[in-house]
């Protein structure tokens, strides 16, 4: 594999404190992202994907949230230890984000151009004329033929797909090394989805950016990702390259997710899906967090102890007692 990781996350714990309860939204997450790769973070709703991604740039609302433990190493710096003004130099500049809702993620009272230009002017000290030129070039790059007009339009004048293109232009404007995309296509209809994914691939090629792609659409994962992280109950339960995850998933949860994808040559008239729901993050079971829904022949230890994420070969890691090496 590649040499030096671009981003290393170690034992990240992000908790929320509401109504006197401690909600362990992210509870001991470890992973790395290498230069130029696309890593998909998948999992059902509520598994902690967004909280993980927002923790990287310290965008968790505090209160009620708090990063209580961990290290996030980027460029040999621990982002969690930076001052507010130092992390602002990373935000947008080195690491940028796009969000699920292109409708609400852009400020309704400023033009598209203003919102792209403010980052350029702040981080790169461009003057107004140059920032505008650059913004027009970026808008052309993300596929606006009438970029000179679009730049002066307000978000509400654009369709959802166009807004997401504008978000991508904004996120790429400072040529970040890492782009975090939190469900960038979920709110869009299928044809637009495909176009946006295509655009993200182009942009990634052009800038050699790494991408952390959050999604619960395994079709998107298959199309985009080099590696996959499967998240459940605030933890990573399986990690591997995209072929391993699709061809030989090991964790019962991953298997469940995969078998819930509808397939064209499938003549079953009902989708198989995992029964039950993600447990609320303040009342995880004592043992394996997946145990209440696990369809495998469970071991007795499953409900007693929390399994650890262990490497079972070639970067493939699983958090399940069925694969845990027997210890002396």
């Amino acid at each position: 594999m590649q040499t030096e990781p671009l981003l290393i996350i170690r034992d990240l714990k992000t908790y929320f404190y509401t109504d006197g309860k401690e909600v362990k939204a992210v509870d001991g997450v470890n992973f790395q992202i290498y230069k130029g790769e696309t890593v998909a973070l998948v999992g059902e709703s509520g598994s902690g994907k967004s909280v993980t991604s927002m923790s990287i740039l310290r965008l968790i609302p505090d209160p009620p949230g708090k990063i209580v433990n961990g290290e996030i190493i980027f460029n040999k710096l621990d982002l969690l230890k930076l001052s507010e003004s130092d992390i602002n130099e990373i935000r947008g500049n080195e690491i940028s984000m796009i969000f699920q809702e292109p409708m609400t993620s852009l400020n309704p009272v400023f033009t598209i151009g203003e919102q792209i230009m403010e980052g350029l002017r702040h981080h790169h000290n461009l003057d107004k004329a140059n920032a505008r030129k650059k913004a027009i070039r970026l808008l052309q790059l993300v596929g606006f033929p009438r970029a000179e007009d679009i730049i002066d339009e307000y978000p509400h004048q654009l369709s959802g797909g166009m807004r997401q293109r504008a978000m991508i232009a904004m996120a790429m404007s400072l040529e970040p090394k890492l782009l975090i995309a939190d469900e960038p296509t979920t709110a869009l209809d299928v044809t637009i989805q495909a176009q946006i994914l295509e655009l993200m691939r182009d942009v990634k090629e052009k800038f050699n950016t790494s991408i952390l792609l959050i999604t619960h659409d395994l079709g998107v994962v298959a199309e985009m990702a080099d590696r996959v992280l499967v998240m459940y109950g605030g933890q990573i339960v399986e990690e591997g390259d995209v072929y391993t995850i699709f061809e030989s998933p090991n964790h019962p949860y991953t298997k469940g997710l995969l078998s819930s994808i509808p397939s064209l040559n499938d003549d079953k008239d009902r989708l198989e899906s995992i029964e039950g729901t993600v447990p609320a993050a303040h009342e995880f079971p004592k043992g394996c967090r997946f145990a209440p829904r696990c369809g495998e022949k469970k071991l007795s230890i499953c409900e007693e102890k929390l399994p650890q994420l262990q490497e079972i070969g070639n970067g493939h890691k699983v958090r399940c007692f069925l694969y845990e090496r027997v210890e002396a």
Partner: protein
Amino acid sequence: MYKYILRRILIMIPMLVLISIIVFTFSKLAPGDPFTGEFDPRITKDILDKKRAMFNLYDPPYKQYLSWLKNVLQGNFGVSMRFGFPVSDLLAERIPNTLFLAITSLIITLIVSIPIGIISARRPYSLIDYSATTFGFLGLATPNFYAGLIAIYLFSIQFGWLPAQGTITAGADYTGLALFWDKFKHVIMPASTLGLAQTAGYMRYMRSEMMEVMGKDFIRTARSKGMPERVILYKHTLRNALIPIITLLGFEFGALVAGAVITENVFSWPGVGTLFLNAVINRDYPIIMAINLIIATMVLVGNLLADIFYVIVDPRIRYD
């Protein structure tokens, strides 16, 4: 947009007519007329009858109304039944005073409430926030006349800092800065009193608007771009939080002129409000009608201004 404004202005005309009918009906329903309660023994019943006849008070009410309307349409507001002066002269003298009071009050409201609202939103549940909340409830709960009396007691009687009445020191002929300062000292207390409830309300409103906007997705986007806190607060948040506030301003203006009736009387401010209260007591119909028309016009124009402001500050709103 221009068509829209024109249409709105045209709609005002029937509304004003309707309002004048209602006001006329109610002032006629009130017992008495300008000449009841005249105790001067030299003014005999005959003289009173003649006076009443002169002002057409023996005509059926609808006739009286129509002749009033006809005159107003020709720009003639009539003559005060009580004092004999033309109503337009009385108004020309007093409207500037009331506008001065209302505008000053609005400026004070904005200068005080917006910064405090922002500070409260930035540090909710801090000492400043709690003090502002307390002041806010007091401000909303205290009637204007009461607040005015307390202010006079404190700042005029106890400390002697501010004049208790009038718009300017009688007899003094100040010019330039001294004149400005003298006017300022006279207006500050009535204007603050008049704007008390508004200031309290705007403060709370600003706080909750700011807090709501801070939780929006686009603020998170701005943060993720590494924009400094100052830009997040004063550009992205404030610009959105001000939209409903600016819109309210239009409505507030009409309300301020109406609210001036009480405050002006407390501070003996020679504006439309003092004139109005006297006119009501004396049943001086031409004055009552004219002032009501002015207040109604202010409210309607204020509402129109609110809609126009809305288009200016919110790019999403368009009227065609």
